């Protein structure tokens, strides 16, 4: 399973997502669409650190890194040793 798929599953099952998984596209606006709130962001960070074995610093928590599933995957790729 790719990073994008894993994060999509996490968001669909754990956060505020009422649609289908197909509707949660790679470019769906997660922040502007209020899918991720501040608490949800902290939970995604914990999920990524545990699932992907990476460390996400405070300075990485900027909107552009979490705006879409694609952006999150890019962040994970960049952080993966």
């Amino acid at each position, binding site marked *: 399973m790719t990073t994008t798929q894993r994060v999509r599953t996490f968001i669909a099952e*754990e*956060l*505020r997502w009422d649609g289908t998984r197909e509707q949660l596209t790679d470019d769906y606006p997660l*922040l*502007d669409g*209020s899918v991720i*709130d*501040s*608490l*949800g*962001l*902290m*939970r995604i960070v*914990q999920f990524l650190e545990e699932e992907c074995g990476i*460390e996400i610093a*405070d*300075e*990485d*928590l*900027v*909107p*552009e890194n*979490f*705006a879409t599933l694609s952006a999150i995957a890019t962040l994970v790729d960049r952080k993966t040793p």
Partner: protein
Amino acid sequence: MDFDLTDDQRVLRDEVISFARAELNDDVGARDKQASFAAEEWQKCAEFGIQGLPVPARYGGGDADPLTIMLAMEALGYGCKDNGLIFSLNAQMWACEVPILLFGTEKQKQKYLPAMCGGSLVAAHAMSEPGSGSDAFGLSTTAKPSGDRWVLNGSKTFVTNAPIAEVFVVFATADRTKGFAGLCAFVIERDTPGLSVGHPLEKMGLRTSPIGELFLENCEVPLENLLGKPGAGMPIFNSSMEWERSCILASTVGTMQRQLERCIEYAREREQFGQSIGTFQAVSHKIVDMKLRVETARCLLYRLGWLMSQRKATPLDSALVKLYLSESSVSTGLDAIQVHGGYGYMVEYELERELRDAIGSRIYSGTSEIQRNVAAAFLGISQ
């Protein structure tokens, strides 16, 4: 698993207790009545090294690790009866020094941190607004870029240290439609045109810690006063809240220990019906509950300090510590008064003041209800 303190930690703890007892406890009752801030004691704390605990030595700090910081603050709470002074120290350390240290430019760090550590500069953190408290990111203060400046408009309330602060860490939104992603943080000096501070607000407890409102009216802030990147307000706020929730109540563990020892002494000496009141289970069981509470609180706190040192702490850990320590300090404050009976209710015995001080802990830095919400979310049982 090793529960022993290092020799250095033991020495620091003992030194903090001796310092606090000798230097910080004069006229606390009078200061509480007058709601006056202990400026001289603040300076003494700085000279001892309290304000600099979390700050690296190159910026004038003590470069202490999280567990050592917690031990020092616990010792401060044990030795110092001015909980308002300790609250003001906490407000600066976690919500002003830490964000500048973690997100500030080198110039900002050089300009502000040595002065904060040295006691000459008091700082305040301005997030809450009349319309946004627990819903912190629902704030309405705006920040608009204009040439080489940001222009801020709005008002803040419950700003601890505002009446005496010379510099403020202020949060504002650059784009309300983006929610928390539009949030920006600024370091703003008191004499900046457009910034004004309201009258001090009167509180139930922690009365020696001044608190007030902050008004921003076309307040023009140079671009270089932005803290972190545009839109980085949320991680700045969250990281400082993690530090604050983790450390702000370390002193209450010391306070609870002091109250426990005082209750044991009183229960052994005070006689009713021809025997010491400690022989009555109604009293002794209450004191045992106080002991259990302080030991549990200390274990939770130290474990969090260790997790922070290992970079393994999560918002769940800090929420549980904040929740348990605040609720415990209120329960212990009530028990201490009950053990002392009528005397405990008297101002002279200082227990009523400590209870008033403790009640605020269930509200500031996120209410107990918010801590439960955070914990529930991280347990996967709510969104």
